Structures are given as C-alpha cells and as structure tokens.
C-alpha cells in the first residue's frame, strides 16, 4: 500500500493553495524507519466497537496527521499509541500495535515505560499547579534526575525547543497556571519534550487557541520534526496541509441495525496525495467539502 502512495518529486505542479514554503521538498524523499506499525487494530469500550480494523505505519521524523469528522475515532487511535486508553475502564485493543518492532500490548509490557518514550500533548492545556520550572522539570524528576545543574539545563533546553524560553526566562518560579492559552500549551509541549521522548502525540493541540498562538505551535512542530516523530489529530484541514507529511483520513461507519457508529480508516497517504488526488470518494468528499 505504501509504495503506491510514494510521491514522485518535482514533476507535480502544486496548486497555489497547497504551497508551503516552509516544507523542504528534498527532505521528503521517501520514508524513514517505521516507528509504529498497526495491523488490523480494533478498539472496544466494553462491547462497543469504537474503531475497526485500522492498519497503518507511522514513519520516523515525519509529522502524520489524523483527520476526519467528529466521532470517527482518530483520538481513540492516537491514545492507543501510548496506551492512554488503559485508563478507561473496559477499554480493549484487538490486533497488533508494534512500536519499533516491539509489541505495545504484549503482556509484561509496562504502560509507564511506554509513555516515557511516547509523549502526549492534550487538547486543552493542562499545566500542573506548580511553577513553570517545576512543570518542565517534573518528567526528568520522576525519571530520577536530581542534580540541579542538569535540571536547569534540561528546563532551558526544553523551553527553547518549545519556543517559550524568551517569554518566561525571567519568571521560571511563577505559577504555570498564570500563562495565556498559547503559552500554557507551549509549556505543556516543553514538559513533554523534557523527557526526550521518541514520539510526540498531539491531540488537537491548537483547537483551544487563537490563530497567532496556533501559528507559533505549528512553527515549533516544524522545528522539532528532525528530532522527533509527531502524530497530530486535527479537525482543521488547513493545519493538516500546513504541517503534515502524511495524512490519515478516518470516517464513521454507521450500522443501521444496531444504530452504532464505528470509526474506520478510509485512506492513508502523503498529505499531497490525500488532498490533491484522493483515491476514495469519501476522502474526496471530505477534503473538497471544506476547502476553498
């Protein structure tokens, strides 16, 4: 499936709407190592099948977007990647989810260890009611880092990566609750980056923010892409075209008999292909219905 969707570089004329000067064509010449491999994954809450038969591969150092109408399961799938669904009583995952070759759901795998490698940024910024410094230092501290000098270094580096350092460097002891929405979300990103994860999952990180704050976060995603693998759920298609390399389009399957709605992966390919040349009619309906 993946080889069919490999983009041929340079020949394709790009419609004006998709031009994005920040994306470097040369860097995107194929796929890196697979980071996540999902095969026939279905997710249940109790007996309710929330998502059915999802198979896709997420590649290293790319930004992958999950898009689709509400209720299509994109957040559910995202949370499966770092085992956050474990926190919901009755949640169950069928099928295989592999992370760099190792099964995420094998018995004996520690969800805590999983989450140290696969971080998550949430829809509504959730800074801890602690100081800015303590928010960012939280992750390293629970991993055992005690030395103040190391922690100072980590806090500064993470806040730089999250493009927040200049704004807060003089008030690291102020409460994290006192920041604006956009700043608080960048603080949460800094907090996530402080543990140096392998992957950063983002669940609609900008939906609670204004356009300027959104722009700052999209810029920072591009900055950190070379060091992390990012998967972002977004309901904003423009955002998907601005930031992502690959896009997965989910939709809702309605079962008339039992009147239930189940999420399903409709199409997955490079962002350019999904938006310019969608193969499935549902994809086409979704992306054209909102664009232009």
């Amino acid at each position: 499936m993946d080889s069919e969707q490999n983009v041929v570089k340079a020949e394709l004329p790009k419609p004006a709407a998709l031009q994005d000067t920040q994306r470097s064509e040369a860097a995107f010449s194929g796929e890196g190592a697979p980071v996540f491999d999902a095969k026939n994954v279905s997710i249940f809450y109790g007996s309710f099948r929330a998502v059915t038969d999802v198979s896709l591969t997420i590649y290293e150092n790319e930004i992958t977007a999950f898009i689709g109408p509400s209720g299509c399961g994109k957040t559910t799938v995202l949370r499966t990647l770092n085992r956050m669904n474990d926190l919901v009583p009755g949640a169950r995952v069928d099928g295989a989810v592999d992370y760099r070759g190792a099964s995420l759901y094998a018995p004996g795998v520690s969800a805590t260890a999983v989450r140290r490698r696969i971080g998550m940024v949430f829809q509504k910024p959730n800074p801890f009611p602690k100081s800015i410094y303590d928010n960012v230092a939280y992750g390293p501290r629970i991993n055992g880092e005690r030395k103040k000098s190391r922690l100072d270094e980590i806090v500064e580096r993470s806040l730089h990566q999250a493009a927040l350092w200049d704004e807060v460097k003089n008030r690291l002891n102020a409460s994290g609750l006192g920041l604006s929405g956009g700043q608080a979300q960048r603080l949460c990103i800094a907090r996530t980056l402080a543990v140096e994860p392998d992957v950063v999952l983002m669940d609609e990180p900008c939906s609670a923010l204004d356009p300027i704050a959104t722009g700052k976060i999209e810029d920072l995603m591009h900055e950190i892409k070379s060091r992390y693998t990012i998967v972002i759920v977004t309901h904003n298609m423009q955002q998907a075209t601005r930031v992502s390399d690959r896009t997965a389009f989910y939709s809702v399957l309605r079962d008339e008999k039992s009147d239930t709605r189940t999420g399903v992966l409709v199409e997955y390919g490079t962002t350019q292909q999904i938006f310019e040349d969608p193969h499935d009619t549902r994809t086409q309906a979704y992306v054209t219905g909102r664009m232009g």
Partner: protein
Amino acid sequence: MSAVTQVDPAIPAGSTRALEARRPLGDRSFHILALGCGLLVLVILVLIAITTSQQASSWFSAEGFKIFTNNWNPGANQFGALAFLYGTAITAVIALILAVPVSIGIALLLTEVVPRQWARPIVYVVDLLAVVPSVVWGLWGILVFAPWLQHIYTHIASGVSGVPVLGPLFGQPVDGASYFTAGIILAFMITPIVTSLSREVIATVPAIDKEGAYALGATRWEMIRGAVWPHSQGGVVGAVMLGLGRAMGETIAVALVIGSSPEITSHLFAPGYNMPSVIANQFGEATGVFRAGLMGLGVLLFVFTIIINMAARGIVERSARRHRGA
C-alpha cells in the same frame, strides 16, 4: 533521533526488553497502603461492636430481656434500663420537633429567598452553631439557660394545669434541668447538620423545574410546594434522620441539663435521664455488672445510631440518584 531517556541508555530502542517492567515495588506498596487505610474504617466499626459487647456481656446475661424494664437500681443490683431508652426517645423527639421546621426554613431561605451574596454570611452563622462545643452548650445550659427556663416552665405549668392533654404533659418543674431543656439544647445542636444537608438536597432540584412553576404564575410558596418539595422530600427525610441520630448520641450537654433522675415521668418539665448521659455521669463509680450495664447501653446506642445512619444515608443517596438521572 532522540536519545532514549536517562533511565536505560544502554538498551537499544527497538528491543522489547526496554518496555517490559514489573509494576515497581513502590507503586504496589502505595496501593496496598491506601487500601489498608480505607479498610480501617470497616475494621474499626467491627472492633467497636465486638469489644464493647464483650465488656457488656455480663449485663446482657444477668438481665436478659429484663433490660427493657423500668427498674434501674444499682444498689439492689437491678439494671432495667427502660427509663434511659424513654429519655433518649423523648429528648430526641422534642429536639426534632423544634429543630426540623427551623432547619428546613433556613435551608429554603438560603436556596430560594436570599440573593447569592447574603447566603455566605448566613451559612457562616449557622456553622458557628456547630463550632460551639457540646460542653459549652452544657455549661451555659445549666448555669444560665436552665434557671431562666425554670420561670417559664412554672408559668406554663400553672397555665395549663387541669387542661386535658397539656396539663399532665407540662407539670411543675423541680428546677430548670429537665427533659424539655435537654430537648431544646439538642435542637440547637442538631440544627446545623439538618440545615446543611437539607440545603444540599434542595439545591439539587433542577432550576428548570422551578422556572417552570414560576412561568405558570406560581407564587414563591406555591413553587416550593409544587417543584421543590416533591424532589427533595426524600433527601430531607434522610437529613432529619441524621439529625435524629445526632440527637440520640449527644452526651455532655444533655448530661448537664437533663436533671439526672433515672425515672420515667410523663411530664416534660421533670428531670430525667437518657442513655448517653447516664453513661457519662455514672461510669466513674461503676463496677462489675453496673459497669457492664452502662457499657451495654453504649452498645445499644451504637446499634441504634448505626441503623439510623445507614437508613438515612441510603435514603439520601437513593433520592439523589433518582434525580440525577431525571
């Protein structure tokens, strides 16, 4: 490519071993510790039942069902406790009759009548009632309140003497300490809890029901009767039962103002006794079966209040659940 976190730098990212870990010891012991503390509640309740019954066993075996007779004479080794059960019941009933209308009135005042900013100070005042310790109520009760009440009792008693029902009920007082005084003080003490619980219950009535009544042109009282009361009556009954439990168990204030007389008299201005106050007053000098008897009264008190509290909480929870889903 980001570095693996500091915890295990040597393990390559791809191997499964890096992800495996047994649940760390600290996490599991914390869970067990928390569980233990939760179970402590149940353990203590069971222990209370067992140890106090043990201490009271000689009374139960000596008297058997005679404990329910009105025959309390430690000197002659007789320990029928009906007088105390009667006293407990009477003082609790008086307290409820006085406190419940007042508490519900305040609860309604807070939820339906006063604007938001006045509610806080009113609640503070009611909470202040609860802050006054039982012994201070008793001190004030016996040294100040009771002598003053004695005058009032005397007037009432002479006023109703000869009147069919009221006359025997309100006879001449010996002094201010009596069942009725104890009932009044208990009413002061249980008002905060009945008020606050009633208020919680009444506040859960959906605003939409109240607005519906008003929209039909109802006056405030009609709205309360039609929209608020049906919703909250279950919960308020539960609140009243909790007040009852509290009234039965209050010891020190009652011990000081009830008059300490282990006899049943039908008139309310006479001195009397109830279960907790006789235990408090006589435990010091009691030995043997006498002490076991007092302990046994404690066991009875425990059983009664547990039953009342369980029923009350059950009723409150059930009415809350019913209306949450509505």
